């Protein structure tokens, strides 16, 4: 059973990112993988043994709350040290870095990705597409943030920005280290990019997964790629 945990969605779910879990479960089923999505709220204990952890976007106060709980429990850090897969979007991406700022206060971050985020000059809002070496086709999504994220030396970007802004520093979006993925792409990103969902499933399974044929998913992804270029 593939265990997928959606972390603090009541706080970290401002921009529809809860859909990432739904898409993972949906595609897992199409690939013959049994999976379960569990919502862990701010007041619950985060299990250390799940296969995939998902974090979404949030407003500042919610982001600070979520961070405080995750920093205290260290469960996510523990899971990552055992190889768990993490997809963190926007405010979630900032939380798992080395530092970020919320409501003018600096936080040290969970340190799962070697990135630092500081408030940017402008809010970056709009369609975005990336050229990523993880995928044959470009990734698409929607960004809506004001953080500017600088990559450290031990991470690689998720992709090079074709349209939009991404991290707001350099021409790249996101960061990847091992099985930990951070990005500014909403959409939700796994709904817009089914091959990204499959990569996460493959990483969680530790082996190639059975090829998925979902015509509507492919058609949707192709249509968004054509629209954002």
């Amino acid at each position: 059973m593939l265990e997928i945990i959606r972390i603090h969605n009541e706080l970290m779910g401002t921009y529809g990112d809860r859909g990432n879990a739904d898409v993972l479960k949906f595609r897992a089923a199409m690939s013959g993988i049994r999976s379960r999505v569990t919502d862990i709220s701010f007041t619950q204990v985060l299990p250390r043994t799940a296969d995939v952890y998902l974090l979404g976007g949030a407003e500042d106060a919610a982001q600070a709350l979520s961070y405080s709980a995750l920093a205290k429990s260290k469960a996510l850090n523990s899971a990552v040290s055992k190889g768990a897969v993490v997809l963190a979007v926007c405010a979630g991406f900032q939380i798992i870095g080395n530092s970020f700022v919320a409501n003018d206060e600096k936080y040290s971050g969970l340190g799962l990705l070697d990135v630092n985020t500081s408030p940017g000059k402008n809010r970056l809002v709009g369609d975005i597409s990336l050229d990523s070496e993880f995928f044959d086709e470009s990734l698409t999504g929607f960004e809506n943030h004001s953080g500017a994220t600088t990559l450290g030396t031990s991470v690689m970007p998720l992709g090079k920005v074709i349209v939009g802004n991404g991290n707001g520093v350099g021409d790249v979006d996101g960061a990847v280290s091992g099985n930990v993925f951070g990005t500014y792409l909403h959409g939700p990103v796994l709904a817009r990019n089914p091959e990204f969902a499959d990569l996460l499933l493959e990483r969680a399974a530790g082996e190639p997964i059975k090829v998925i044929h979902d015509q509507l998913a492919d058609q949707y992804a192709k249509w968004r790629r054509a629209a954002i270029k």
Partner: protein
Amino acid sequence: MANPRLTFAIAVAKSAGFASKLIGNKGETLPGRILLALEPEAISLLAANKKVILISGTNGKTSTTKAVATIVRQLGNVTTSGSGSNLSWGAAGALMSRAKYAVLEIDELHLPSIIAQTDPEIVLLLNLTRDQLHRMHEVKRVSDRWHVECAEASNTIFIGDIDDPYINYSIANATNSVRVSFGGRVHPDGAACPRCGSYLKWVGSNYSCSCGLTNKISDRQFKKGSAAFRNAALANVVGEVLETKPIKFKETELERSITKEFSGKKAHFRLTKNPASWSEALSAEHKSEVILVLNSRQVDGIDTSWLWDVSFKSLKGKKVIICGERGMDMAYRLHVEGITNTLANNFDEAIALVKKKEVSVLAAYTAFFELVM
């Protein structure tokens, strides 16, 4: 009117509006635009002679403004906003009238500035939830601005539905307020306290925070009800403050809904524009065939990510037909939720696929206006 520049500006704006209507335009924002271009202070100058009532919130602005106008007409002549024209130009255009009362729908981001300019008698605040995030960015950002302006406007009476924590926070420091509760309701974005940032403690549909923000203490209580019921009640609270008789509205009068015939089929349209209004519309849906129309122009919200925050489960077992510029986003969203649907190329194709004589149409803002107006 002693101000010659204002008098001149009004004359030009009115004739431009008249000319625009002659050539077939609706002419709702043009006069206001011209007025403000010729006299930037027009809103405050014109508001000085009127009793101004403003209505704002994420959902229900237009229909509640109509209801408030109906109530206030018992007291005298009323000028009110044109349908949906809720920015500065709309307000300026409406204020050109000689009516004693102005009942104006105001966009959430424009509200603080319009309050400052009009020094209103009453401001009615309905609700604040996620909407057009490409423009609003965050719900908290809007309520922070309201909070500051509501505390400033010491002559104004603020009426607010405090079951919404963002409204409660907005009017928390107002000098005069009527805090209305409908026995609580769950808020989709209410996990963090808008005032202090703590994790907001919810018991069922009621909240109370360690900082004191709660919906349990209110000035006026009603029973629970639909959004239409709440907005009708809130409109009547405006009437209470003005000491007029209450008016009993049908709930359908407070919904943005309309029935129109298409190729012999009755289509019941309802305006749906963000997670809260979609959820409200879906919960009331009882037809066996439903058409969903999704666009993503500026007023619809250019990002469609929010579709994943709405549960479409109640559509299971119905015949669901989807169209609109972003129909494919909706089709894939429902596909993942396990709801069989058919994606049509346009509304004509969608209506042709309807088997029965009646169909429900849940339509995004721009689609609603294009199809029914």
